Structure formats: C-alpha cells, structure tokens
C-alpha cells in the first residue's frame, strides 16, 4: 500500500492541489457484476479533513471506553471498533442521512456517524441518564434517527434491515437500507433467508459483511466452508474491497447505493478490515491470533494513518493542521468522558417506563406483591 502511495504521489504531485486530489483505489473483486466502482475518485480537502476527524473521533472514543472499562466505570459487554473506522466513515459518506442503517453490537462508531454525539454515546456506556438510550440500553442498544441499533443477537439485524428496506420500497421514498453483519454472523441461516427474500422482492438493501477475520475467537478459516463472503449471496451481486481504505469504501458504497436506488434489488459488499481489540473487553485478543499480526496491521494498514499519509503526500493538509484536529478530538473525548462519569444514573422511577408506546400509564409488578411500580410511555 505504501509503495502504491509513493507511485501515486509521484504521478500526481504535478496535478495535486490543496483543494482536492484524484486518487486511485485498488480494484474490487466482483461477483456477478460486469463492472465495479470507479478506480479513481476525487477527495476534496474538506472531505479528507472531515473523514480524518471522524475516524480519529471514533478511535479516541473507543480507546477512552477501553480505559473506562478497565476502571470498571463501564460494565457488561463492550465491543470496540478501533481499526475498523474506515468502514463506518466510508459507508456514511456514500449514503445520505435520510437513508437507513442497522448493524450488530460493535456499534459505537455507527452511532456516531449516524448522528449520535460522543457525549451521549459515552454516557450510555457508563449507564447514565444522559445516555443516548437514557442508560437503559447500554453498549449494544443505541439508536438514532434512521439507525436501528446496535443489536445483541448475532444475525438478527439482517432480516430487520431487509424489513427497513421493504418499508423504503413500499413508501416509495427512494431511500435504501445498509445492513451490516460480521464474518461470524455470515454463516447464520436467517441471513440466507433474507438474501432470498430481498432478492425475490428486489429490496433496496446493501448487505455489508465487515470481515475482520475473526468471529469472537474463531478465525474465518475455522468457521466458514467458503470465506468468499461477497459471493455467499449467490444470486446477489457482490464486491469485495479493502475496508481499511476509507475512499475505497466510500466509492463502493456509492456504487452499491446507486444499484439499489435504480431498482435492481440488493447488493452485497465485503469489507476486509481488522479490529485491534479482542472481540470484547473480556477478550485480550491474543489467544487466537499473534501480537505480530496485530502490530503488522497497525503499521501497514491503519485506516487513519493511511488517510493521513495520503493527504500529506498530496499536499492536502499540513502536519500541524492534522495535529490540531487531534488535539480538538482529544478535548472532545475528554469532555465527553467527564460528562459520562459525572452525569447521574437514571432515576429509579424510570425503571418501568418505555414498555409500551402511546399507551396510558400502567402498573408494573415489583419484586414482591406489595410493590406496585408505575410505567408511562
């Protein structure tokens, strides 16, 4: 990748400007597609800075969550996204906020790209009333407009996503649904059921497999008879690409979105990516893979470093500018962490609320027959 960048920058140095650069992506692997996304794309300076900032925000937010978890301020399940930032950011830049997205439990990055703030994400992780789900959902159950979580049951989000796509088609609003799952979930039966119906009914659904090479502690080779996840949709056209390259992800997503919006039905993308942390905070992540492997990805394919190098070598930003963004991001995370650790926990009388929507208040049995608790919508 470094070598390629050198070649590119040599070629483009003459034509690169501070306002944007035409960059070359690697070719995608295609399945049942005549052609794939364009090999060249323009990255403007503004875009580059914005992608950098968002990816850095996700990175720092996840590392802060790691810290808070070790301090036992975050508890339960915590599945961190550091390493995979280019996927969330690239996808979001390829669709509109009015489109829809659903993913599984490694969802903090998406909650951010879909409109959540770092404050309310962190406060949800620490279980406070200022959390995006008022402290009632936790790490795996965060929602924003047109973002359906955050889902704890592996694979269950895939039919849900196709259902959202069905609604888009039904309502004729030209919106699409991006439906994410991991390499581990890719073997779930309900996903194949969903491929079938999405294809039959031509639902505007982009299925995206984030292949980070491990389903919990099981490597893809040990879990899947076929690791060509982009082909597993069979009759659904697919593409496989480098999920560490935010531009590649963006262009592929745009391509896929166009496919869906034109009424051709679903399409499948496999993003090859990597997570630096273990499966969750209770997994050190080194019993089933080597530290060398993790280090190699960090040094050769880190998505943020790659974007940074690209921007620097194309004279799209200066080292100081990017450092300044780093400082701002760090501050934002610190502020958010401060809020997340000082905001009070939800009040006890919120315990039984939000059972039903649009219903009159009702009584809920407490732990014993004399305790009757109140529940409002």
């Amino acid at each position, binding site marked *: 990748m470094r070598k390629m960048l050198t070649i590119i920058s040599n070629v483009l140095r003459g034509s690169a400007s501070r306002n944007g650069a035409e960059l070359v992506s690697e070719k995608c692997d295609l399945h049942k597609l005549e052609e794939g996304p364009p090999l060249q794309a323009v990255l403007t300076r503004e875009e580059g800075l914005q992608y950098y900032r968002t990816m850095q925000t996700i990175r720092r937010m996840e590392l802060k969550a790691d810290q808070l978890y070790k301090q036992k301020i975050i508890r339960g399940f915590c599945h961190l996204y550091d390493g995979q930032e280019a996927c969330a950011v690239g996808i979001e830049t390829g669709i509109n906020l009015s489109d*829809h997205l*659903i993913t599984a439990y490694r969802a903090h990055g998406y909650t951010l790209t879909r409109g959540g703030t770092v404050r309310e994400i962190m406060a949800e992780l620490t279980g406070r009333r200022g959390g995006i*789900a*008022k*402290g*009632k*959902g936790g790490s795996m*159950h965060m*929602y*924003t407009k047109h973002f*359906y*979580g955050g*889902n*704890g*049951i592996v694979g*269950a989000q*895939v*039919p*849900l*996503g*196709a*259902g*959202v*796509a*069905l*609604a*888009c088609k*039904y*309502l004729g609003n030209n919106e699409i*649904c991006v439906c994410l799952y991991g390499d581990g979930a890719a073997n779930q*039966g*309900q996903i194949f*059921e*969903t491929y*079938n*119906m999405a294809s*039959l*009914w031509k639902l505007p659904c982009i299925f995206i497999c984030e292949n980070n090479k491990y389903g919990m502690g099981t490597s893809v080779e040990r879990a899947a008879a076929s690791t060509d996840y982009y082909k597993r949709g069979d009759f659904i056209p697919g593409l496989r690409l480098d999920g560490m390259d935010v531009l590649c992800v963006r262009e592929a997503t745009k391509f896929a979105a166009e496919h869906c919006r034109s009424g051709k039905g679903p399409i499948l993308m496999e993003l090859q990516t990597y997570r630096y942390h273990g499966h969750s905070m209770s997994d050190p992540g080194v019993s089933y893979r080597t530290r060398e492997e993790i280090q190699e990805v960090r040094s050769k394919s880190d998505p943020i470093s790659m974007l940074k190098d690209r921007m620097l070598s194309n004279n799209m930003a200066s080292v100081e500018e990017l450092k300044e963004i780093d400082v701002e991001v760090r501050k934002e995370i610190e502020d958010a962490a401060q809020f997340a650790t000082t905001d009070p926990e939800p009040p006890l009388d919120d315990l039984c*609320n*939000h*059972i*039903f*929507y*649009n*219903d009159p208040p*009702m009584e*809920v049995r407490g732990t014993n*027959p004399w305790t009757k608790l109140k529940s409002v*919508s």
Partner: protein
Amino acid sequence: MASLRCLLRSGKTAVRAVLRREFHGTPPAAVQVTVRDALNQAMDEELERDERVFLLGEEVAQYDGAYKVSRGLWKKYGDKRIIDTPITEMGFAGIAVGAAMAGLRPICEFMTFNFSMQAIDQVINSAAKTYYMSAGRQSVPIVFRGPNGASAGVAAQHSQCFAAWYGHCPGLKVVSPWSAEDARGLLKSAIRDDNPVVFLENELMYGVPFEMSEESQSKDFLIPIGKAKIERQGNHITVVSHSRMVSLCLDAAAVLAKEGIECEVINMRTIRPLDAEAIETSVMKTNHLITVEGGWPQFGVGGEILARIMEGPAFNYLDAPAVRVTGVDIPMPYAKILEDNSVPQIKDIIFSVKKTLNA
C-alpha cells in the same frame, strides 16, 4: 309457488338493499358471522383504513390463506399489501419487525404458532424489547397472528399452546379471542395498537358462527386490549378461561345450572396484560375459582391467575383452594381417543367445579 317464494326472497333482499342505500344511518341488523369471516373483515377494513397496514406470511395471498382467513384480500389489495413469503419464519418475521420499525404496520401471519418458535427471537428480542432498550426512541407497531393451541389430529408438533410463553414477556401484548365479536374487535385494536401484539387464534373456532350485534359491525368497533368479559353471570363459582375453552365452560355451565349451580364464566380475551381486577371482583362475589385452559399446566396461564389471586385482595374471599383445569402434561398424541383425553372436556370442567364447591 316456488317462484313466488323466490320472488319474495329476492324482494326482501332487494328491499334490504334499498334501505341500506337510501338510509345510510340505519345500522345493519344482527347477523351470524364465523370467527374466520370476522377476522377477514377486520383485516379488510384496517387495510382500507390505513395505507401502512400490510399482511405477510405463508400462503396468505394467492392461496387465500392456509385456513382461508385472508380470503379475497390479495384480489382486492394486490401484491404490494398482501405478500406471500417463502417458508422462512425467522427471516420473514424479522423483515416484518424491521418494516414496523421503519414506519409500516405489518400483520405477520404464522401458519400456526408452532412455527413461531423458529422466529421467536425476532418476536421477543427484536420486537418486544426494543421500545424499552431504546428508552422510547423506537416503537414496533406489529401484529403477529395465527392459530394457536390444539387442533384436530395434527399431533404433537402442531398442537402447542403458546399463551404462557408469550404471556411471560414484558413489552408484548398477548390477545386470545374467543367469539367472532372478540376476533373482530380485538384484531382491529391490535392492528391499531402501536406496540407488538401476539394474536392467538384457534383453528377449531374459525368455522364457528356467532351472532354479531349491530354495534359490533361498525368499522370502528374496537374491543380494548386488557379487559376481560363476563360471558355468563353467576353467584356460585368463577370460571376463567380463554379461546376455545370458553365454549366448553359455557356448555358446562348450562349443564351445572340444571343442578342449581350457577357459574360466572369469564372470557379473558387478553392474556397480557391480564385483567386481574375482573377476576378478583368476581371471586369476591362467588368465593370459588377455577381456571380452564387448553395449554399445559406447568408455568401456565392458570398458574399465573392463581398466583395473582393468592397475592391480591380476593384471597380472603376464597372458601376453597382455587384450581386449574388444563391440557394433560404430555405432547399431543394423534389417535382420536388419546387426543380427546389430552385436553379438558366438558365433564372435566363439571367435575372440577363440583369438587371445588364440595358438591
């Protein structure tokens, strides 16, 4: 003579038709409607009323419904709103839930609730819990409906009652209609409800006709979810039941009345939220209670009712322990004689009433 009769008959129809046309204010007279037709009409009216309502499930469209409950709907509303699915419950239940999250109002039919077990994760974890987990951000206005419980000769894998399983879960409403009026009013309420509703029908009841009052035939006739109905008043014992068993309870009550025992038969109509107050009020009057259900005894609907009576104000009014009449604690056998003896019969209800009353 025959032709005169024909003329009179058609004349009567013609007059009625004329009346209907010219006097819009005149409500239709009471008629006999089967449970199946009541469900069909309810769905038809709700599909017409709200563009966002749609029906999906196996054989609901071109086959007119495995049990003909959706007869005629596909012809009327077409492919967009009446959707035949492949035999993939987990997938299509999930799709239905996702559609509900994104603003539609799906009716998801399970050919029988036995097959809902394949999709139960989507019903519970994706539908029931989401409003709570999202602290009110994401609602799921969906109805899961289909026949539940024992049928006739369909054996163990096709005869389970799921009232207790779904009734266990917060975030769900669980409804179990008995009569045609129940079916109509409760299905309309369920479809208009903004929350996940599990609607437990009964295959053996589909063909049973009931008299429907004029009021119940109105397009906005709704029965509130969570309120039981006293089908028969009585002073000696409270008999609580749901779904098809209500018929047996009423039959048993008729026999018992001849012996001077007056049963108060309560049709639960809703499993969750349970109308404990209606049951308590009745028990405080009659001082005796039995529950009657088709499902298995352990951890069942009857068990919940008895627990609530124990914990509530009605306990002090009991003159005898409350008991449950339930299906036998076995998988459903096939042979008729065995099947008949696996579910409560009228004689079992009569026996239990008399035992409770020490009569």
